[in-house]
Each structure stands twice: as structure tokens, then as C-alpha cells.
């Protein structure tokens, strides 16, 4: 196969085109904006994608060719990953005549800023919201702000601003509406199917255009680090300052972000973001909606990928427990050769996955629920939203004629890997679907798990709560209220 390659990256930054012929592969967008371009409106609050002060928008043509803008945390986004995108910073919002954008004006009118340091990030998050929903409900506003911390206001005035932004008439053209056609054609023009290959040695970065090109690149450079959404890898750079080059970026790989319905279920490409996965999975597995809404904030959900969440092997990744319970398989690609393994077998031990050098996660297949199967998934964390799981538990149970005939239960945060509760499953299968069965099965958790104590939770709490999540699963199936719903009417 002949692949055309290019040795520079190009993207649009506000209203200008940026072409970079040299680039450190791990250069973050935030440093590029602040240090190279002196666009200092975007702030660094944490350098780990958790506070949102560095929020900017990234516009791209999605898999349907539609120009979409999403919030991202620029502190952990690498510049190289922006090839062919439109980066929009806070400096782009105000009208050329100095008029504030309605989102900005609403924040001023409703006293939405105090110290002001989080404010540009909040404005960008609200701007993204305003573009898709000018009259947002409170749940929608809160969800849009899950990735933004404010330490001064207590958020109340920001919520008021978000509710009022639609009422403020636009005096000057919205920049992204005004230039939409121009941007769309520019980004389309840049979709040339070229692979980008720049730099040498540890400073080499590769942006393969296709799955085949990715397979070839990785096979040839098996020590390279694969970067998808960089919501984890970003921290290896900003926090640990680990040398991780060369880098192979995969989010632009055509076809790797495919979502398809298959005969047996749903097929999710490795680079499908949490945001996009949620939209699809929530339809098929309704319990997933609320669960996905508690993974990171919008910025992280827009960047982070299902494949990355699996491939990094974390024992507290959010997606493996439900995917294992659902019986998902993962398909790996090694220089074009595929193999498929059950997801729970992919996780061998802490820091050790069933992945060979040069092999990468290409897709995940998730079976649909069968008749009489119930599915529930719960996350426990110190803070409800944008927190890492203390533990997460997922339950898929087949209930036939009042008996449990099949069970798949998986937990994160309870062991060195995401792990099935096989003893608990055994204690349930073949028995009545009753509280007595549930109570009798609870001691089996202690055979399945010996959780650790750490800053997220003690061992005792993890164990006690894991058991109680099984109780919750049962009670909720009986129609009893056994969990909190912040917006009961919306979440019902």
C-alpha cells in the first residue's frame, strides 16, 4: 500500500491558520497557546484536566462530515492531535468592536465571576452549551459545568447566567456562526488522507490516517506510545514528566471511531469518545446513561476514548466493569492480524494486560441484552460528578420464572484489575430472585475481593458498599427507591 505522508501539522487557531514544521510531540495545547502565542486568556489551574480553567473548543468534522465543536482541556491535549481541527480560545469570543458575546455578558450581568481565574474556562464551557442548547435546563447546565471548578462563587450566579444567556440579544455576529462555512471548507480541504510523520527518535510523532497505516506504524515502532484522548497519557507528561516518545496519535485514524450495530450487539471503535459512546450505549442499555454522565466532565468525555480506558489497564477505569458484565469482547490488531478476547481476560494483573508489543485495541463488541436479562451499573465516589470511582459495580442477571439463571457481575476498585465476582455469581445462579438469595450471596464477595484502603475509600467501605450495591440492584428491580436522583423527574 502506498501512503502519502506529510511532515507538518496544520490547524486553525481562532481566525488564523497555524502550520508547524517542527513540534515536540508532547507539547500541550495550553503551553502552545500561552507561551508560543501569548494567548493568556486560557489559564492553567491543575495541568491534569480536572479543573477546566484551560477549557477551549476544538472544532472538527465528525464521522458524518458535520462541523462540531467540543470542549477540551487544553492542558492535557497535545498540539499534534489538533491536525485538521479548529481551536477556539476565549480571545475569539468578543466582537471586533469590543461587544461582549451574550455568554460573556450574561456572566457579567449575573456576577458570575469573582476572582476570575476559572472564568474563561467557564465561559467556554457555557459557550459550547449555548451553541447546542440556548435554553438549557438546570440538569443540562450542571452537566455542561461538570468539568469546571470554581472556588469563589458557589456556582449559583453562574447557573443564573447560563439560564439568562439566551435572553441577551446578540449585537455582533457570533464568530463561529459567521465563519462556519469558511471553517468547514478549510477543514474539509485538509482531509487528504495523509499520514503525518514528523521528527526523529523520541521526538517523532506519527498521525496515521487509516487503521492499516496505524498497524504498520505501530508494528514498526512497537515501543511508541499510543495516544488517543490523552486524558491519561497527558498526565504522564504534565505530572510525571515521563519520556514517552515516539508518539502515535490515533484519534484521527479513519474508521477507528466507527460505531455499528451488529447482529449480536454493538461494535465500538477504540477511539469512540465517551460522549459518542454514551449516546449509543444509553439507548441499548438505559442504565448506562446516568453512569456515563458521571465519567469526568464534558471535556474529558469529549476527549477520552473507550479504547483508551480499556488499554491503560487501570483497576478503576469506569467502562470495564459494565462492559465485562455485559460480556464484551475486545479485538486487538497486530500488524493487521486480529484476535478477539473476552474483556475480563484482557486484564491479567495490575499494570499487565494481554497485549503484545505492536498490538493495539481496535474495537469492542458488546452483546445486546437477551430477553429476561436485567442490567444495572453503579459508581461510588467521594464526589458525585467528575470523580474517580472508589468502586463501580455492574450486574447483568437473567431472571426466568423468578429464578436467577445466569449472572455476570463485575467490579472496579475492588481488586488489582476490573474483575468478575464469580463467587457471588455462583451464589446467585439457580436460586430464587429474592432478598433471601441476595443476603445469602453477600459473604461470597469476600471470596471474590480483598480491596485496598486508600484515599478514595477504606477496604471496609469498599466491601460493605459492594455488597450493598447488590442489595440496591435487587431493591430497584422491586421498584423501591434505593438510590439518590438529583433531578428525579429528569433521571426517571
Amino acid at each position, binding site marked *: 500500500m502506498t501512503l502519502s505522508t506529510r511532515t507538518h501539522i496544520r490547524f486553525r487557531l481562532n481566525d488564523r491558520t497555524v502550520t508547524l514544521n517542527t513540534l515536540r510531540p508532547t507539547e500541550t495545547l495550553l*503551553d502552545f497557546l500561552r507561551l508560543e502565542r501569548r494567548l*493568556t*486568556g*486560557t*489559564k*492553567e*489551574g*491543575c*495541568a*491534569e484536566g*480536572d*479543573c477546566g480553567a484551560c477549557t477551549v473548543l476544538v472544532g472538527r468534522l465528525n464521522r458524518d462530515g458535520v462541523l462540531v465543536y467540543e470542549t477540551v482541556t487544553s492542558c492535557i491535549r497535545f498540539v499534534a492531535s489538533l491536525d485538521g481541527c479548529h481551536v477556539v*480560545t*476565549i*480571545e475569539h469570543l*468578543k466582537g471586533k468592536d469590543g461587544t*461582549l458575546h451574550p455568554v460573556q*455578558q450574561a*456572566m457579567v*450581568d449575573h*456576577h*458570575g*465571576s*469573582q*476572582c*476570575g*481565574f476559572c*472564568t474563561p474556562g467557564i*465561559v467556554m464551557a457555557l459557550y459550547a452549551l449555548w451553541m447546542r442548547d440556548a435554553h438549557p435546563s438546570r440538569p443540562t447546565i*450542571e*452537566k455542561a*459545568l461538570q468539568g469546571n*471548578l*470554581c*472556588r*469563589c*462563587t*458557589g*456556582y*449559583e*450566579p*453562574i*447557573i443564573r447566567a447560563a439560564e439568562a444567556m439566551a435572553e441577551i440579544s446578540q449585537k455582533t455576529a457570533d464568530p463561529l456562526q459567521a465563519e462556519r462555512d469558511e471553517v468547514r471548507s478549510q477543514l474539509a480541504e485538509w482531509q487528504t488522507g495523509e499520514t503525518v510523520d514528523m521528527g526523529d527518535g523520541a521526538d517523532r510523532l506519527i498521525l496515521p490516517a487509516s487503521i492499516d497505516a496505524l498497524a504498520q506504524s505501530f508494528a514498526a515502532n512497537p515501543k511508541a506510545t499510543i495516544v488517543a484522548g490523552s486524558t491519561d497519557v497527558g498526565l504522564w507528561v*504534565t*505530572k510525571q*514528566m515521563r519520556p514517552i516518545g515516539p508518539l502515535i496519535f490515533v484519534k484521527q485514524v479513519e474508521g477507528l471511531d466507527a460505531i455499528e450495530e451488529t447482529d449480536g450487539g454493538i461494535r465500538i471503535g477504540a477511539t469512540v469518545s465517551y460522549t459518542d459512546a454514551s449516546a449509543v450505549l444509553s439507548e441499548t442499555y438505559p442504565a448506562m446513561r446516568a453512569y456515563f454522565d458521571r465519567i469526568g466532565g464534558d471535556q474529558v468525555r469529549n476527549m477520552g476514548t473507550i479504547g483508551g480506558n480499556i488499554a491503560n489497564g487501570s483497576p478503576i477505569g469506569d467502562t470495564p466493569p459494565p462492559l465485562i458484565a455485559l460480556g464484551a469482547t475486545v479485538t486487538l490488531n497486530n500488524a493487521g492480524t486480529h484476535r478477539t478476547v473476552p474483556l475480563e481476560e484482557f486484564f491479567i494483573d495490575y499494570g499487565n494486560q494481554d497485549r503484545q508489543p505492536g498490538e493495539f485495541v481496535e474495537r469492542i463488541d458488546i452483546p445486546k441484552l437477551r430477553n429476561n436479562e436485567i442490567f444495572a451499573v453503579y459508581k461510588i465516589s*467521594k*464526589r*458525585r460528578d467528575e470523580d474517580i470511582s472508589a468502586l463501580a459495580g455492574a450486574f447483568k442477571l437473567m431472571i426466568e420464572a423468578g429464578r436467577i439463571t445466569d449472572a455476570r457481575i463485575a467490579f472496579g476498585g475492588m481488586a488489582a484489575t476490573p474483575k468478575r465476582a464469580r463467587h457471588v455469581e455462583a451464589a446467585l445462579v439457580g436460586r430464587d430472585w429474592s432478598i433471601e438469595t441476595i443476603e445469602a450471596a453477600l459473604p461470597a464477595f469476600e471470596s471474590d475481593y480483598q480491596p485496598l484502603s*486508600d*484515599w478514595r475509600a477504606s477496604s471496609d*467501605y469498599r466491601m460493605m*458498599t459492594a455488597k*450493598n*450495591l447488590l442489595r*440496591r440492584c435487587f431493591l430497584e428491580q422491586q421498584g*423501591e427507591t*434505593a*438510590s*439518590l436522583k438529583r433531578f428525579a423527574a429528569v433521571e426517571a
Partner: protein
Amino acid sequence: MNEMKPIRSEAFEADATIRGGAHVSQRHDSAHKHVTGEAVYIDDMVEPIGTLHGCLGLSTVANGAILSVDLHAVRAAPGVVGVLTAVDIPGENDISPTGRHDEPVFAETEVLFHGQPIFAVIAETRDAARRACLKAEITYEERPPVIDILDTADDPRLVTPPLTLARGDAAQALESAPHRLDGTMRIGGQDHFYLEGQIAMAIPGEDGDVQVFSSTQHPSEVQHMVAHVLGVPSNAVTVEVRRIGGGFGGKETQGNIFAAVAAVAAKRFGRAVKVRPDRDDDMVATGKRHDFLVDYDVGFDADGRIQGIDYTYAARCGYSSDLSGPVTDRALFHCDNAYYYPAVKAVSAPLFTNTVSNTAFRGFGGPQGVVACERVIEEIAYALAKDPLEVRRANFYGTDDRNVTPYHQTVEDNVIHRVVDELEASSDYQARRADIIAFNRESRIIKRGIALTPVKFGISFTATHFNQAGALVHVYTDGSVHLNHGGTEMGQGLFTKVAQIVAEEFQIDLDRVKITATTTGKVPNTSATAASSGTDLNGMAAQVAARTIKDRLIAFAADFYDVPAESIVFSANRVDVGGHPMSFAELVKQAYVARVQLSAAGFYKTPKIHWDRDKGTGRPFYYYAYGAACSEVSIDTLTGEYQVERTDILHDVGKSLNPAIDLGQVEGGFIQGMGWLTTEELWWDSKGRLRTHAPSTYKIPLASDRPLIFNTRLAEWSENAERAIRRSKAVGEPPFMLAVSVLEALSMAVASTADYRICPRLDAPATPERVLMAIERLKAAGAA
């Protein structure tokens, strides 16, 4: 007499009042710059050519002797210009704010906490400095660290002298009380999590001079510390700060080290030097709110009325004194919250631990005092099977009697009864409480709780001499005004409020008053912008300065136009001089021509206050601010998860200078307090390493943690009984403690699982885990 010039007199008619005067809601002066990203923080400033960047090298053990420090690889790393250790400090290697010489810039022979600075790398870029830092080879002889308050039991060392407050015979009252109980409460600390981390940039000047831009609440202290460390007089150091991205007490003393290192490096290398730690280093290496272990022993009667009480407030202070003395003092000053104790003894124990030195944080120990006091109220209520609100009422300070505090100050301005009565009604507390009790009978898994808690908070620095401030006001010949004062703007709207006061004095529109960066070169010897005192002190000083100039203008006009001074009236952008109107600018221009000085310094010191710490008596506070909150929560008894369903607040800010800004302080303070008492948990491992050192692990509230219904009102009827600035009251800290209502509502929901017979003794922070464990304890106690 000179002929009057009728200047645009028709325009005067339009202005009935000025825009942006006192007591009106006015947006934050920088709001339009915040929302566009144009507001300049120190890291956004244009850097001088050749600016270098520093990174601190931190200890990797919590307690030990330093055996060797090998920095060769650090020096050889790419981009490194130099390395600084204790021997490179020209002056004194000490930045202890209270002068106890217990806080070195760089550790020399021993390290006393994990994360203590030992050296600094100065490099061409921040990235190079950070990477080089990792190459240090330091060996230690480790000693077992003292991490927790409980670890200190065998050998309690104090970092600063303790305080005792006593009135009456507490021991005797406890003996003779009909009921008596005792207990212990654990109260966690809190990281400030200002969104803008610590930062300083120093620019070397001629001779020994250096200019420092510091993200600080206390420019004068940074000035003194930098001078001390450089070994130069204070007049060689100028510190400037336009705004900081949040402080909350975390930048009262904790910015000193970054400024000192930047300044030493700037002088050493002759280039500008910026030091901005990464968030993780910031959280590991800088102090936090003190966590406390409070022992209480209380005697009370059948009505729940306290007869005698004994408290010990033990605090984890960390390895040095920093501000732990005044912080633990203030905890004792608030062990009464809003309640009268007929007999009381309260003792503080500011304990040494091998942890980062704890420091100021909104409320300054007061919240810990209050939350322990409210625990005692709860204990009494559960012991007597009463609504805690009833016990509160039984113990409120009286207005004419039962009004003397444990420190012998008489409470003269008590409005807590009215505040609580109004909130009880507006929140529909009684009916909702009854509904909740009914709900809890029916609902098996989800339980609810409600609590209405009061706040009384003493206003003034307890170190009396800090209660002074200066301001500098210039009026230019076009009538525009330049305002400067010693307070720092950290988002609280201080600059806006002070500018409103000045606009009001001159009767000119707010946009005629230019707010300028705080600098030690304009107003010297300032106090920290802290203790909620910013507006009280600086607003008054600015008012004094403005009045001085105004008086000169009046004297000039009276003389020049030969009219009585009383006939000269400043109103809405004009001055009536004996019935003849002219613009403010015109009068100013004429005064200038007549060689009238149009610049003045203002000075203010708080009257009436005094404090004898040795005797434990005096009037440390000029006045009190009051408030109350009613919160309702739901908990999940399977997991301990919870949500705040509704909060109603009524808060007293006196006659508000700017209701919009004050409301923002109340709402924001409440949520920050709620974070402290719920999800914000500082977790040290057994080696003394803080493992919750970034937002990924340390969880401050999000928008979705707000009360679902959140009604906040200011007590519009309130006026400060004292002659504080325009009869307003301080607002920065008091609302923080309104969040105790959330903790106690959670407690009630927990208590419902044992039919409200047992006080859950829910410690803070009440994480879901602590809530669940409290439920389990009650289960066990109920079964026993």
C-alpha cells in the same frame, strides 16, 4: 468674587444620583475582563527578556536528617542556569511570619515534612526547571514521623503557646449540672484550592533593589520577608499585586517562599525570575486549614440549657508555628458560636506534627470552633430527645443579660434571635421537619435530615495592631480619581466596594475612579487582606483620604467664591457652590490653579478594641456578624451517598455596600464551607505523604453539588451598631460557617436510622464513607 462659569448645567439635571455609589449592586470592577480573558494575572504578564523560571526541590521524607545533597545532575541538566540552597541566601534563611525563626526558606540539616523545600533550580524555561528538579540525589536518615493529632499523644510538642479562656467555675458547674456528657469530635483540614496557584515574579533593580509581583494577600509581609532573606532594608523591595486568582487565606503567608526564592534568584542571576509551582507541589508544600480534635464535656439542665462546659481544641499545626497561634486562638473565640456559657473553660493545643505547616483559611480557626460547639448542641438535643433548634434557642446569647463571652467581651449587637426567627419562618422549618420525620418512617433506604444552624462571628484581627489601614487618593485636574489602598483584590470585590465608597464621597460616577494595583510603594506597612477586614479597614482609610481632599476643595471654594462652607454641596457629578452648580472637574481644575493639594493619604484604626491574651480578657472584636442557614439533605443508607436538597440562608452584612457582591460572598462562602464539611478530604499516608494533592484526588464542590434549591437573602433591615464603614459589616468569612447546617442535616438523616435516640457523632468531612460508617455504628449501638 469671580464670575461663575455655568458649565453644561443642563447635563447636571440628568444625574439624580451617581452611577456606582455606595449601597447599590455593582458588577465586579474586572468582570468584563474576567469573561474575556483580558484580566492579567501574574503568569499572564509580559515577561522581561531573559526571564528565568524556578522550581523548588522538595523533600521526599517527612522527618529526617539530611545526610547528603547531590545536585550535580541538576546543575548539568539542559537549560539550567543555577541552583540555590540555604547557603545561597544572602540574608536570613527564615520566613517565619510571626518571627519565631522556625520556618526556613530551604531546609539545611533536617527536613520536618514531606514536601519541604530543600533547593531551587533556576532554568531558562519552567519545563527545564521542573525536569532538572527530578535529578536531585538527596539522602536522609529517616525518623518516624508524627503525622496525626493522635500520634502526638505520647509526646505532645506545641509550636506556639496555647491559650486558655475561662469564665466562671466550669468544673463546679459540670459537677452540679443535672445532665452531663462528654465526647470527641474530629474536624478535617482543607486545602484552599485557589484556582490560580502560588506565583511570584521578581525583577532585579539597581543597588539592592528588587521589584516583586506576588500572588499574595499580604504584600507588606512579602516585602518584609524578601528584604529579610536578601539582607536589605525594606525600602529596597517593592511588592505589587493587581489581583489574585483566589486566596481564602492560602496566600496570607504561604506566598512568601515563592517570592523569596524568586527575589534571591533575580539578584543572583541579574534576570527576572518567575516561580510558579505545579498544582501538586503547591498542594504538598503549602499550608492548609488546621484539622482539630476537640474534646468536650458539658453539663446542662432538662431544657438543654448549658450550665458549664469544658473544651480542649487540639490542632494539627504542622512543623512550624506560621499563624497557628492566632488560628487556634480564634477557634477558642468561637467555641461559643452564638451561645452563652454560664461557666466555661476552653484550652487550645497547637501541636507540632511532621506535616506541612497549617495556615490561615477563611474563618481562621473560627469554623472549627463553631462546628465543635454545634456538635455539643446536637449531643444535648439527642440526649434530651429535643429538636436541636430548641436547644439552640435555650442557649442563645441574651440582649441585656447572659451576654458575656468566654473572653469577657459583652455582646452588644445581638441580632441572632431575629435572624433565626425569620429564617425559621421563611424556610418553613417546622413543617418540613415534621414532614421529614414522617418521610423517614416510610422510606427504607433513603433518609432525610434538616438542620437550622446559626453563626455569630467576631470581626477584627485579634492582634489589635493589625487593625489599621492606609489609602492614597489622587484627584487629577480632569476630575478623574486614582485610588490606591493596602487591601488586595482576590475576587471578593474589595476594589469595587472601596471605589464605590470613594465615588460616593466625591459624588462622581464610579467609572471616574481608577482602581490601581496594590503596591508597598504607595501605601506602606499594611495588614494582610484577611479576617474579613478588607473593606472595613481600607474602605474607611479611602473614605478618610477622599474626605481630606473634599474638605480642601470645600475650603478652597468657600474662600474663592466667598460662600459659607455649609453651602457647598457635592451631588451627582456636580458641586453646588452657594447655589451655583459646576462640574466636579471644573472645581478641581480651579483648585489646582489655586495650588490646592489634590492628593491625600488616609489612615484608619479600628476603635474600641483591646485584648490581653495572658489574662484572656478584653474586647478583641469591634462587632459581630450574624447569620443562619437551614439545610435539608437526603442520604442513601446503603452507600452513604447524599445530596443537599435545599438550603435557605439569611445573613447579616449590616447596611450592604454592594448587595450583589455581598450575596456572592455568602453563596460562595457557604459552598466552600460545605466542601470542607463533606467531600474535601486531606489524606496522608503512614509516611506522611499527602495523597490528595490535586483536583483528581481532592474534591471541592462542583455545580452539581449545590443545594438543589438555594435561597439566599441578606438581612436588609440590619445596620451595624458600630460606626464601621457606612454601617456595613464584614462578609468574607462569616458565611463559611453557615455550612454547618449541612453537616448537621446529614447527622439527622443518619440519626433517623436509630429513631433519633443516639447522636451520630458524624465527624468532618462527612464523606459518603463517614456517613455510612456512622449508620453502621448506630446499627451496632442499637443492636447492643
